[in-house]
């Protein structure tokens, strides 16, 4: 049961807040590691709200692109603009990210969320309320005091997503969040993402799973060899992919 003294509060930012950071513009973006251009002179504009899915074969640069957008790594050259502003600390604070393998601290489920809110400077009273709300969202109220790292794989990823959402981000990145989860856990993660989208959070998710892309995407960015092979609304992408690479990928072929 929730403590009645703590007022229930909505987890969402006001519906328009995501618009402040949008559009996201990547201009002639290049990221090279060990002499290899993982992201190669890439141009992309994401103006749509809702869920953007980034797809592409292994090694296309999907994870790197996500990290560049979130500011975890710096581009070798080119520009990243959020709502016309250069990527920086202030913008990163309004974003959150969920990784493929959930990174949970060696503390209880509850303490993991508490810690993240503390890092963002949320004061204690507010923190308590947000922790409870986030645990409820992830259906983990009953597991609050359990060491996070002995939760099941699905629970760990739900916790990691709930932690990200508790920060009330305007933009949420996810890097193959369900790659190692069973169908039931995948479904609950997708449910949380659809909820979050309805609350106005811009979501950018990398996935390998074509079915997931169909279920979630508003628009699809198809990446190949560090470049955008195509960027389309979901329906048109799946109805008639324009690029050779995407056609082969969707047909279940091996894309090199």
């Amino acid at each position: 049961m929730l403590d009645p003294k703590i007022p229930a509060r909505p987890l969402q930012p006001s519906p328009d807040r995501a618009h402040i950071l949008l559009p996201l513009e990547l201009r002639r973006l290049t990221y090279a590691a060990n002499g290899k251009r993982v992201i190669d002179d890439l141009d992309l504009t994401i103006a749509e709200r809702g869920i953007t899915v980034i797809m592409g074969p292994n090694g296309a640069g999907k994870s790197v692109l996500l990290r560049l957008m979130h500011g975890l790594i710096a581009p070798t050259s080119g520009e990243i603009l959020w709502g016309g502003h250069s990527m920086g600390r202030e913008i990163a604070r309004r974003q959150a990210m969920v990784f493929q393998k959930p990174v949970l601290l060696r503390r209880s489920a509850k303490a993991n969320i508490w810690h993240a809110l503390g890092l963002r400077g949320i004061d204690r009273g507010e923190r308590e309320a947000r922790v409870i709300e986030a645990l409820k969202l992830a259906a983990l109220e009953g597991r609050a005091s359990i060491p996070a790292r002995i939760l099941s794989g699905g629970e760990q990823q739900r916790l990691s997503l709930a932690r990200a959402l508790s920060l009330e981000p305007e933009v949420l990145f996810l890097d193959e969040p369900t790659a190692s989860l069973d169908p039931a856990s995948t479904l609950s993660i997708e449910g949380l993402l659809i909820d979050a989208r309805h609350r106005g959070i811009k979501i950018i998710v990398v996935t390998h799973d074509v079915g997931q892309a169909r279920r979630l995407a508003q628009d699809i960015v198809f990446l190949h060899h560090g470049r955008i092979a195509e960027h389309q609304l979901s329906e048109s992408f799946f109805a008639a992919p324009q690029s050779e690479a995407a056609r082969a990928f969707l047909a279940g072929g091996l894309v090199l």
Partner: protein
Amino acid sequence: MADLTEAFHTALRLIGTLDPKLIGIVLLSLKVSLTAVVIASTIAFGLGGALAVYRFPGRGAVTATISALMGLPPVIAGLFVYLLLSNTGPLGVLQLLYTPMAMIIAQVIIVVPIVGALTRQACEDLLEEYDEQLRSLGASSTAIVRTLLWDGRYRLITAVLAGFGRAIAEVGAVMIVGGNIDHVTRTMTTAIALETSKGNIALALALGIVLLGIALAVNAALMGVRRFALRLAYA
């Protein structure tokens, strides 16, 4: 052989009756080493955590030095502190030579590299796993150090226990800077050395048994902490 058996019996009686002389030496040893370990750990946690997280010129050199000092012969630490505290030394005015404080200083110098190197290693291992997540959450470097130290708490406890084991068993440094003065700076190890050379095997044996017991207890605690941490997936 009969002498030895008798000495052994006397030793057990000294322990069993809580002989005041024996207890005095044991308590002084514990006081010195525990104090040294508390001070050294406080320094070493900050040092190890900072070395794992901050990037600065000379970081590699500091890390290498600390690792090398892990194997520092205690006698050398003793000699260093002796020179520091002797009447003609830079800190001679403090008149600390042949006091428990001198022994604490020497043991701090011995323990800091041990706990520091183990702390740095623990934090670096954790950072490899946490780095992107913590940066995504917007953690400052100081906040990252704090997070790593807390999440590495079980490894830090084992590091502290290792440091304590080294300090309590160490003889060379405390002998040099403490002087093995009865009731003042006579620790278990220096007393064992002295009593053995005087032929007072019984007291030496009794102290040896207590020291061995402490060493075993520290090891048992080490294993217990590791097992506990593993069970919570906190290792």
